[in-house]
């Protein structure tokens, strides 16, 4: 999915997915909201969980403090490095 770009910034797809997580949502919900293919959403959410931007509870995804729009919009370095 490549949610995090080479400079540590969020990709457009990742921002779309985070925007779809205003309330806890399943990958299917996010796919419907973003119009992204389900396989991309699954991979993207998994990547954002690994990056600490999203958490999974009871089958639904929601943003962590780091993944909330207020933090992302500050434009600061998220401290996420690409392998």
């Amino acid at each position, binding site marked *: *999915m490549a949610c995090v770009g080479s400079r540590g910034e969020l990709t457009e797809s990742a921002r779309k997915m985070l925007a779809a997580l205003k309330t806890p949502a399943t990958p299917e919900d996010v796919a419907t909201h973003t119009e992204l293919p389900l396989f991309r959403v699954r*991979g993207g959410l998994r990547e954002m969980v690994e990056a600490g931007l999203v958490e999974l509870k009871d089958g639904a995804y929601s943003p962590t403090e780091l993944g909330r729009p207020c933090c992302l919009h500050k434009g600061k370095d998220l401290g996420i490095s690409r392998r």
Partner: protein
Amino acid sequence: MSDQVENKPQEQTRSLSESAPTASLPRLGMVAPLFEAVTTHGKIRLEDFKGNWLVLFSHPADFTPVCTTEFLAFAGIAPELRKRNVELLGLSIDSPSSHIAWVRNIKEKFGIDIPFPIVADSNKEVASLYGMVMPGESKTETSRCVFVIDPVGTVRAMIYYPLTTGRNTDEIIRLIDALQTTDKHGIATPANWKPGEKVIVPPPSTLEEADARMKEGFECSDWYFCKKSL
């Protein structure tokens, strides 16, 4: 989807040739081997496609002419496949950078976007798992393989073409239509079948069924050969 099957035969083969583990080749009706791979759309796992049909296909190499025609053709059928809940996933033994450069080149030279991810299988992990390398043809390239995997992760069809011969993407759509029609209606499809044409009623397995079959209103040439419209 579950873990790979057929571990036992693999172990038996390994004892014959310790230095060269044999790939567990997919078989029709068996669970597709799981993998996680780097693609042009990021890391993808096979299970990410759960709930969708998947056409996993390999090509010999980026920046080669036949493969380019195939990618144009696969891009062309992508919308039709999407209508059928089918995703495409390409693969070759090339790097992510090579894939990216080739996809960009196709856009530049032919004006076509490649909408599906392509696995960069530089270490041949997925290619080995699926038996995509045919050493008699090439030891360094994948042949033109197609694996149709259903929404629960079962291998439903496999097609192998040699390096020299580009695939027919209309046949892939026809194959998907036939598989989905079979699943939906419990029938089989005859040679060269296309949607809208009559389908084959599965042959009876007992004499009683065979006698009854002739009275069921199907179009029967004989007790074992009956067709019907859907």
